[in-house]
């Protein structure tokens, strides 16, 4: 049958186009590898080097001599891990209440939560800076961790998840056994929504790891910053001179995130897309 041959040909063409898109998506990562393995002289030459070179270790050594890479890496980890832990706890606790209980003022409080979604960062930036300065938090990681410790998106998302995932009979049964509110939350609700927590955790971690605008303002001590800010400083001061080193910094900053994403990709992609279609 001719049509089978035709559809197979179309299938090959389809995958050819999709692979092109895939290569475009991946290209900047490859390009970072190429640039970070060459010296600046090689990078500045024509024609451009299209394959990885052999100067990676040299670039890494220059990078570590120029910026406090591990210091800022630790800062980024500290912020991302603390915020993720706090968000998981506070958001799931509040979401549990909104999903499974009735109390006076519930509707109004939830409507307020949705409104908070819409407030743009710029409207908060100046007063937040002033408040943080008064508290003496400017320049320290506290200024990044505390305001991010609970968020509207996470509560909203976890509430949707808990509504369908936790069966009311489970809570009723545990109450008959004499479990109080906190035990219902800890022993009944949390074990059931573990996949949801994984999504929220990975999503929060990545968001915090990549956060740039607020850390750029709040971290006023140039020697005590997160990785993104350190990278930006590096690019600002050496971006026109030592490209190989700057690119090495960019590449190394990407690695922890790629690992986290690879671990949770299936869940992240599926859940985000589902939420968008539903919303």
């Amino acid at each position, binding site marked *: 049958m001719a049509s089978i041959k035709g559809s197979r040909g179309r299938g090959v063409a389809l995958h050819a186009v999709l692979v092109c898109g895939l290569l475009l998506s991946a290209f900047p990562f490859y390009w970072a590898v190429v640039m970070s393995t060459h010296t600046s002289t090689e990078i500045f030459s024509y024609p451009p080097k299209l394959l990885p070179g052999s100067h990676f270790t040299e670039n890494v050594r220059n990078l570590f001599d120029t910026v406090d890479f591990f210091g800022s890496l630790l800062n980024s980890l500290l912020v991302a891990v603390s915020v993720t832990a706090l968000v998981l706890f506070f958001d799931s606790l509040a979401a549990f209440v909104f999903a499974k209980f009735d109390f006076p003022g519930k509707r109004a409080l939830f409507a307020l939560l949705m409104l908070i979604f819409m407030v*743009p960062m710029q409207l908060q*930036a100046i007063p937040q800076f002033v408040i943080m300065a008064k508290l003496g938090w400017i320049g320290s990681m506290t200024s990044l961790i505390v305001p991010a410790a609970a968020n509207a998106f996470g509560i909203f998302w976890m509430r949707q998840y808990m509504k369908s995932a936790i069966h009311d009979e489970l809570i009723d049964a545990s109450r008959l056994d004499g479990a109080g*509110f*906190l035990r219902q939350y800890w022993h009944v609700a949390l074990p059931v929504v573990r996949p949801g927590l994984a999504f929220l955790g990975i999503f929060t971690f990545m968001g915090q790891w990549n956060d740039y*605008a607020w850390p750029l303002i709040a971290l006023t001590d140039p020697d005590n910053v997160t990785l993104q800010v350190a990278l930006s400083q590096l690019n600002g001061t050496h971006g026109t001179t030592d490209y190989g080193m700057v*690119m090495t910094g960019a590449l190394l900053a990407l690695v922890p995130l790629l690992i986290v994403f690879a671990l949770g990709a299936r869940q992240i992609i599926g859940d985000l*897309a589902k939420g968008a279609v539903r919303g």
Partner: protein
Amino acid sequence: MATAPALDKPPAAATGTTAVHRRKGVLSHWRLYAAISPFYLLFLCFGLIPVGFSLYLSFHRWDGLGAMEWAGLAQFRYLLTDTDFWSSIGNTLIIWALATFPMILLAMVTAVMLNSAVRFKNVYRFAYFLPNVTSIVAVAIVFGSVFSTNFGLMNALLQAVGLDQVAWLNTPWGIKVAIATLMTWQWTGYNAIIFLAGLQTIPSDLYEAARIDGAGPVQTFLRVTLPLLRPTLLFVLVVSTVTGLQSFAEPQVLLQTTANESTFSGGPDHAGRTMVLYFFQQTFDNNDFGYGAAVAWGIFLVVVLFSIINWRLVQRRGED
């Protein structure tokens, strides 16, 4: 939600004496409020009070250190005549349009192809999503090298095919194209996956019916797929508007090496100075907190306005 186990209305089996029950109810409420309080406390301190304070500030002159001085509507009056602010709106909109329209088109085409390709779907989804989760600072640095005038890959390609080189990060249009390319790269795959999820909600018998009626692939797409994809398109467009009109990190990192006065200046001739960059420049470079607050409210209005316009456009097309 009749089935929700409200603590103040326990199921009949659990009911003891009413007095105990009522006291238990009050106690439980107290716990519930305590459980949701962390978010609302944080929001009060770092959300509501700041927004109120922003409004208050925008009616004052303040350098962040000295005494605040009442300015009435002067900041807003200046904002309306500030050509730098208007040109930053123009820059933002041009960059947004250059990024968003190709992105939505590409994302839709990619989603339709992904929907019909059965094999390797998860591999494609993973790879297409990757740009969206990576650090914008690192990626902007890589794009900066690709668009570099002297040794960038773009110019090497142009030279290879015999075209003139372009000083990408030094000309008004080059700057905008470079920023828009970065944004398109970062968001196309994400939106393709959103569209794909939307496509998968369309029942396959509709396609079957269209095929029986003799509709070609293009006709099927325009008459069946596109109308049913409208809610997803709306979501994509609104998210792109809200994020695209508030772009900051892309121009800031991309242009920080060619910026001469400050890292918020948006490159030569301020061609890449978006609204949010202008806000940062006024506030944290010039220490003009009062005017910065007025600019922030201006940005908020522009974003809300364009979100509504997009919403209306997509909705009205649906009524045809």
